[in-house]
């Protein structure tokens, strides 16, 4: 049986299939594997960041810092590869450790100082963006043979190239799904989103989980930064402004409740694909201007929020009805 909590995910899936069918009807070329491969490649960095954002939102929080962390990661990698002779893999490890610690520090501030995540991650956003400015205000190109090797990796299926970074995104999503549904940490995240007080009473380690969630989000933003630097071959401190909003939009369109507690990592994947599809359609059309992307995404966001609201009303009304029925039943017995 379909549960009410699964409905948003199903609607997201339905929207994606419908949107893709419409696109395919208008432009048959959009059905090609090449378009699918590009969809994965172009949205890889935002998808990876959105996985972290899904965990944060599932726990009832929000992380505004990821766009800045992605930019910082890119600049950091570019500067380190330009000024030192470190191997990129070592640089990757350093930057991942840095961003994970940064996320953990934000989580600790949120938990121990009892400050709203909104404000803490806002300060984190300024801090990370500022750190990127301090490293370099100019766009720094990355020229390293290891980068060329990574960028050259692809899996060819009838003319379409599935590149490495698209694969990294898919793997991140699979790992995210496993963490959310198959580990104790994942269960704790859902419990925390359902209500902190209740979670505490059930024995959920709130401090550990909160810090873990923001560390995960920071770390994934770092990974997303690495992917972004592979995608653009440069580090620029003004890049990826507003990515956090796109990630939040993807999570909501993916059927996750912004109040926390309900949602699926897999839904976010389709949320990303829907947003990518809108962009691709606009490119294919050629006459529509780029700002329609924002308006359509805003409209979709609104539609999904309404849908979630409607579902909540429906379930509440049902629960109320059942309760009343029970009460009248008892009254009849006595």
């Amino acid at each position, binding site marked *: 049986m379909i549960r009410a909590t699964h409905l948003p995910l199903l609607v997201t899936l339905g929207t994606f299939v419908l949107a893709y069918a419409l696109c395919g009807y208008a432009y048959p070329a959009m059905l090609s594997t090449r378009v699918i491969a590009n969809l994965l490649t172009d949205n890889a960095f935002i998808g990876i960041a959105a996985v972290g954002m899904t965990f944060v939102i599932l726990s009832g929080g929000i992380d505004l810092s990821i766009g800045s962390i992605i930019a910082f990661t890119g600049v950091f990698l570019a500067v380190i590869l330009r000024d030192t002779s470190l191997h990129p893999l070592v640089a990757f490890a350093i930057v991942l450790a840095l961003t994970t610690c940064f996320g953990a520090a934000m989580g600790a501030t949120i938990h121990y100082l009892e400050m709203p995540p909104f404000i803490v991650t806002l*300060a*984190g956003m300024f801090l990370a963006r*500022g750190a990127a400015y*301090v490293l370099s205000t100019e766009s720094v190109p990355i020229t390293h043979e290891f980068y060329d090797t990574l960028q050259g990796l692809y899996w060819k299926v009838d003319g379409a190239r599935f590149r490495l970074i698209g694969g990294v995104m898919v793997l991140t999503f699979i790992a995210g799904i496993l963490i959310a549904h198959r580990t104790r940490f994942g269960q704790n995240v859902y419990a925390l989103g359902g209500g902190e007080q209740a979670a505490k009473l059930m024995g959920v380690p709130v401090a550990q989980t909160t810090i873990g969630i923001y560390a995960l989000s920071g770390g994934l933003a770092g990974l997303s930064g690495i992917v972004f630097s592979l995608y653009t071959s440069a580090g620029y401190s003004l890049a990826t402004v507003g990515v956090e909003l796109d990630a939040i939009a993807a999570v909501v369109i993916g059927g996750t409740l*912004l109040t926390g507690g309900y949602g699926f990592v897999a839904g976010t994947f389709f949320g990303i694909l829907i947003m990518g599809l809108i962009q691709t359609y606009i490119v294919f059309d050629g006459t529509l*201007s780029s*700002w329609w*992307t924002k308006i359509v995404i*805003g409209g979709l966001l609104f539609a999904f929020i309404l849908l979630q609201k409607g579902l909540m009303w429906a379930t509440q009304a049902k629960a109320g009805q059942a309760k009343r029925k029970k009460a009248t039943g008892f009254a009849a017995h006595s």
Partner: protein
Amino acid sequence: MGPKPSLLKRILPQLIILAAALLLNVIVFPDFFQIDFRNGRLFGNLIDVLNRGAPVALLCIGMTLVIATKGIDLSVGAVMAISGAVAASTVVEGHGWGTALLAALLAGGLCGLWNGFLVAVLRIQPIVATLVLMVAGRGIAQLVTEGKILTFSNEGLIQLGSGTVFGLPTPILIWVVLGALVTFVVRRSALGMLIEAIGINERSSRLAGINSRVLLVCVYLLTGLCAALAGVIVAADIKGADANNAGLWLELDAILAVVIGGNSLLGGRFSIVASLLGALIIQSINSVILLSGMPPEFNLVIKAALILTILVIQSPRMGNLIYLIRATGPQPQPEATRARPKKEATQ
């Protein structure tokens, strides 16, 4: 609401922080307080702080009330872009500046009504409801300007951004008058108390007979209007409407100003004066960084560090800690014990 001494007590922390920020300004730039009167206009760094702080100050008048109702408005930056674009396009089409201002206010008011409708009638959480307009708003603004930066040369409209009234730059006059007006209306009537009641517990305030729905819509409407004014000022200042960058991240500055003003993000008691001081604190910090000649790359890092410090000092955990230290501190006790025997001795 209360008598003057309580207001002074309420805004004392903000005044101290502002004084410290201004002191820093004087240290890095000794002539900071010097104000000249040239060509019928006041000049000086202090005037600049007041002038440049106008958009954030205007935004935080509305934002304070929204936050007092336990809400938040993320869309004000986007609304600024929309109203700036509407004002510019109206002027470019050949209408007067009055029509342009009205059109911009209408656009901002509509955006505010939309937010209010989502929050008060559809009962969507404010952070989510206003996110919709934050994402779509810049698209709408670009739709109005057709993707270009619309420039204009209408003297009347430009006067709003860079003109003067009695030697005082117009933006200062606008935010001071509007701030005073809203404070007066809210505090000389029961409105302020009703808004606080909604923020503390909406359900019980509704049971007490407050029409929370209408009041919430009005609060978001006012925020939209404030954002529209700020948008017009910013557009008039650069003589053009930039849909991509006008008001970018100003919603965050406005929220910060409200938080620095000591207003809780969880709603309830509020003070517009304190929020306005918060806006001035942010602007003074910007001014310190500019005047000190530090590389502009450090701007954001310094701002983030200062904001974190202020927030940590104001966080509830720190408040509890200070309270505990005061309550269990070793110093007051010996005094108390010493005082008692003395009293007994005199008796």
